[in-house]
């Protein structure tokens, strides 16, 4: 059975471009091993750096919600609904991140169970 018959070709090329040209996941950005970044930063955007960026954005929402709450407590010119909305935004971003993580873990387990 030919698998590429199921998946459109552009989906495959997009996947390949996201995970790097040699189809291996790079963990350098997580481990902190950045010395070969200058050599292959032309088009390759690896999966782990995307994940890290997005997690940082979620964390930024939490931090800004924290700052907003502190400003409100300190008596700065912040409305109470702005505090509530920023905490809501942080909560919704975190829920989205958790769902994405669930999907990733689910697909990893699916691959792990695969009979070879």
């Amino acid at each position, binding site marked *: 059975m030919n698998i590429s018959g199921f998946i459109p070709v552009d989906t495959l090329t997009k996947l390949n471009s996201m995970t790097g040209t040699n189809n291996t996941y790079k963990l350098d950005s997580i481990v902190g091993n950045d010395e070969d970044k200058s050599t292959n930063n032309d088009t390759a955007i690896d999966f782990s750096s995307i994940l890290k960026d997005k997690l940082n954005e979620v964390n930024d929402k939490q931090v800004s919600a924290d700052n907003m709450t502190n400003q409100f407590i300190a008596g700065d010119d912040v409305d109470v609904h702005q505090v509530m*909305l920023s905490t809501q935004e942080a909560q919704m971003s975190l829920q989205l991140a958790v769902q994405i993580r669930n*999907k990733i873990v689910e697909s990893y387990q699916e691959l792990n169970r695969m009979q070879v």
Partner: protein
Amino acid sequence: MGAFTGLNISSSGLSAERLRMDTISSNIANADTTRTETGEPYRRKIAVFQENLDRELNSVTGQYETKLKGVKAVQIVNDNSSLRQVYDPSNPDANAEGYVSMPNVNILNEMADLISSTRAYEANVSAINAQKSMFSSALQIGR
């Protein structure tokens, strides 16, 4: 459209209603104020709002398109309707005929505005909750 555009629009609505509430509070507090900095009695304040639009360049089509950004307060204007004349010769601000110019604030109107402002605030909160439940149900996809 970002994920939180709707929240920001509703947030601007909430801020606008807070401002309207502030002006109404000021009107009620100064309902009997006969002296201001200009020397004449207090005049009723009205908050004026304007739709907040932003034109942005779409990176895909190359066209300008208008983005909704909610509402913004433009200014707070004075109500220039005629002042109430009350006969009270003992008042230090009474004129030669014994009449005092009182602010053009009608407490009943202000109370009605207060209710409509509160309800509008609640409506914005309902919109926020609806957006949040929409987001949550989108996260249920594939569960």
